[in-house]
């Protein structure tokens, strides 16, 4: 197992390096001038030029990248051009809310997706199956911003059940729970679809296997057969999918956080990009990439734990 973890960690290094290079190049080619941002809109050209020189923006891009990597190695991500706060403190303040949002999303959508997929498999071909599959297809197909706006329209505006602006507080407070409900619901709806579909096909496949037939022959109740012998074995590919989809959820969180004015890493990244806050943009890209790598690593490890054949390979 330790070997598996070490392997995954080593494999992450080139991926992270690739992301850093790509992120750095993208920020360089994006429109906007960090020196102008720092100098302010009314600053004369000579002041902007001085700042450019001071920041080393006239140096070749390779030199700038090496300088950036050098600072990064020392844990220095620089300061936000807009707020002058350290990038680390800005990212630190935003990571917590995003983790809460991910947690609030996954805590209900994973069980819901698995339950829906299992029900659809058990009642294959029935009305329940069709409704669940239609719902899943809608969840996969509809863009996240549309789901957000529909939920705001009904749960926020028409019935006025839930707030749709800001964070309200930590997740364990009532206000925090109320504020996170709609973003977590929106994000969860796009997550349920793939999980339900994968669970359905996986459960159907497992239910056909010999050990399930044996369990039935032993006289076990259908509920016990499905839950103990069917679903348990069907979950391995589902977990893989959950890991992959959790990574993509970060992308969904960017949109969701922006629409709900939720102060997480996604909204921070959008704000940084729109205001040409380059150090913060690079920091946000780094954090999102790290999160993606970490999630995939956890999935790989979980997969190895659940299926010993993977370790042997």
């Amino acid at each position, binding site marked *: 197992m330790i070997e598996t973890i070490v392997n995954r960690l080593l494999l992450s290094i080139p991926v992270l390096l690739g992301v850093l290079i790509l992120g750095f190049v993208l920020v360089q080619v994006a429109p906007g001038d960090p020196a102008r941002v720092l100098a302010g*809109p009314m*600053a*004369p050209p000579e002041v902007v030029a001085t700042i450019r020189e001071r920041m080393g923006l006239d140096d070749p891009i390779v030199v700038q990248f090496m300088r950036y990597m050098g600072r990064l190695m020392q844990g220095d991500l620089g300061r936000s051009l807009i707020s002058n706060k350290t990038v680390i403190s800005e990212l630190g303040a935003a990571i917590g809310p995003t983790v809460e949002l991910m947690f609030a999303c996954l805590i209900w959508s994973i069980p819901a997706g698995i339950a829906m997929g299992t029900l659809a498999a058990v009642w294959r071909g029935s009305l329940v199956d069709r409704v669940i599959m239609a719902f899943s297809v809608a969840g996969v197909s509809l863009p996240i911003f549309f789901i957000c706006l529909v939920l705001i329209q009904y749960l926020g505006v028409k019935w006025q059940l839930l707030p749709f602006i800001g964070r309200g507080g930590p997740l364990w407070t009532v206000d925090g729970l109320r504020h996170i409900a709609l973003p977590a619901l929106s994000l969860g709806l796009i997550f349920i679809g793939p999980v339900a579909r994968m669970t359905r096909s996986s459960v159907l496949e497992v239910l056909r296997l010999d050990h399930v037939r044996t369990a039935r022959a032993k006289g076990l109740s259908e509920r016990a057969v499905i839950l103990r012998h069917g679903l348990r074995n069907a979950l391995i590919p589902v977990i893989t999918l959950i890991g992959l989809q959790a990574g993509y959820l970060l992308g969904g969180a960017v949109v969701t956080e922006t629409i709900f*004015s939720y*102060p997480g890493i996604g909204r921070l990244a959008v*704000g940084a990009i729109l205001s040409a806050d380059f150090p913060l943009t690079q920091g946000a890209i780094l954090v999102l990439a790290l999160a993606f790598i970490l999630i995939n690593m956890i999935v790989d490890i979980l997969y190895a734990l659940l299926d010993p054949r993977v370790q042997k390979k």
Partner: protein
Amino acid sequence: MTCNRSLIGALVASTALMLPTLAAAQEITIVREVDSNNYDPQRSVARAAAEALFMMGDTLVSLEPDMQTVSDGLAHSWEVSDDGLVYTFHLKEGVSFCDGKPMTADDVVFSLKRWIDPATASPVAWRAGDVEDIVAIDELTVEYRLNAPFSELLYQLTQSFGTIVDRDNVEALGEDFGIAGFNGTGPFCWVSWAPRDQLVMERNPNYTWGPSFYENQGPAHLERIVWQVVPEASTRTVAVLTGQSDITQYVPHIAVAQLMDAPNVEVVRSDEAFWTYFMGFKIDKDPVADPVVRAAMNLAVDQEAIAEDLFFGMVEPAFSYVSQAVVDWDPGLDDRLLRHDVDEANRMLDEAGWERGADGVRVRDGVRLAPTAYIFAGSTWGGIAEAVQADLLKIGVAMEIEAFDATVAWGKLATQEFDMFGMSFPYITAGETLNLYFRSQNVPTPNRMNWIDERTDELLRTGMAATDQEAQFAAYHEVLGKVHDAAVWIPIFHEPMIIAYRADMAPVVPHNNYGAGLYKGLDLRFLD
């Protein structure tokens, strides 16, 4: 049974979750579109900074909602020497900062000198005038000494840049002043700031020195204000409609009618907002160097249609370069303003020898009437520029639009690459606008028109140094006439201040100083 209990428990929990939390009665949430880069009054020029700084701090003098009358602030009275070079301010007694430390004349001197100190690099230091020195005569008296008279000084001192700050606070926080904290003398005190998210401030319980034009001079009625950034226009609108926000001045034009119809929302509008959108010309560049071309282009643009179609009638079509409601506007110009008249525009161009080519675009001496306009990227300027472009095509002018992100645009607008540009600006007086945009020394920016004229400079110097209003206005009126006659801008619209707020709040009086609609927030309160 267990299942039923769980179900009931879940229902109770979810119902409790959906019940609105009991908000403190005297707390409001104000939603706005953008945040400021910082809350250092001498360093930030953002409107978002001014909105909060007016509440967290005070200036020596204040501006009444009519945008013309200078009133008391931290100074209860002031005198100006006959030569206009010395302003003596007498400070109110008993003023203290939020941390309880008394505010003295030394703090005033420190703050105003910090404004003009080159080390501060304030982009608006010019607004403080040509200062010889600022001196504390005693604990409650400050002398503001000028090298040259500055008739705009009192108006400029009402702006957030002149906010009095606490020297100890500035020195203790260093680069983080206005980022990690701000100790002011205003009706509200800094609590916390999460950039791009929210700024929280609480009532200053000791505040009793508010401007006398306020019904309530302090303490404020509200206990706590949360400034919440909501970039999405539709989300801001429904936030006010559903009571999740109590007040906003960032109302999308398309939503004003909807908000006016809502029974739980009040909408108030002020046309004395003094924020004007215009397109300017580089007057020394072909093809717009010809004053006839510029005048014809002015006549071609249908400001009323733009106001109606793009902004749903919620802005005031502009024909003058500043609002005709400013204190130093020249009413004699009213009849000379260029108004929409396509036939006259075509006639003028025909007469001037600009002939239409095969593609309908006019040409003269090989010069094609196809100016390039630089604008800020985004829906507001995109819409305006496209409407102007369509209007100009009717007279054979093919304006080409190039849009730039704001972080690039300011640099681009300091070059000589373009023929036209789009811009908007806040102001208090015509004199302020003319001194900013039309002084020769301000080429290439903010005098992007390359308007270099000795007589204008002389008149602006006269207006600025005038110690009597008649001479000041006479000078500014002449400059207003010169630039309007030369058609150096195409005025597009004056943006009014529109504030939407909960119907159970006392009527809100819109203020407009630097576009900060709620100004000091002293009269904001819920109805009994």
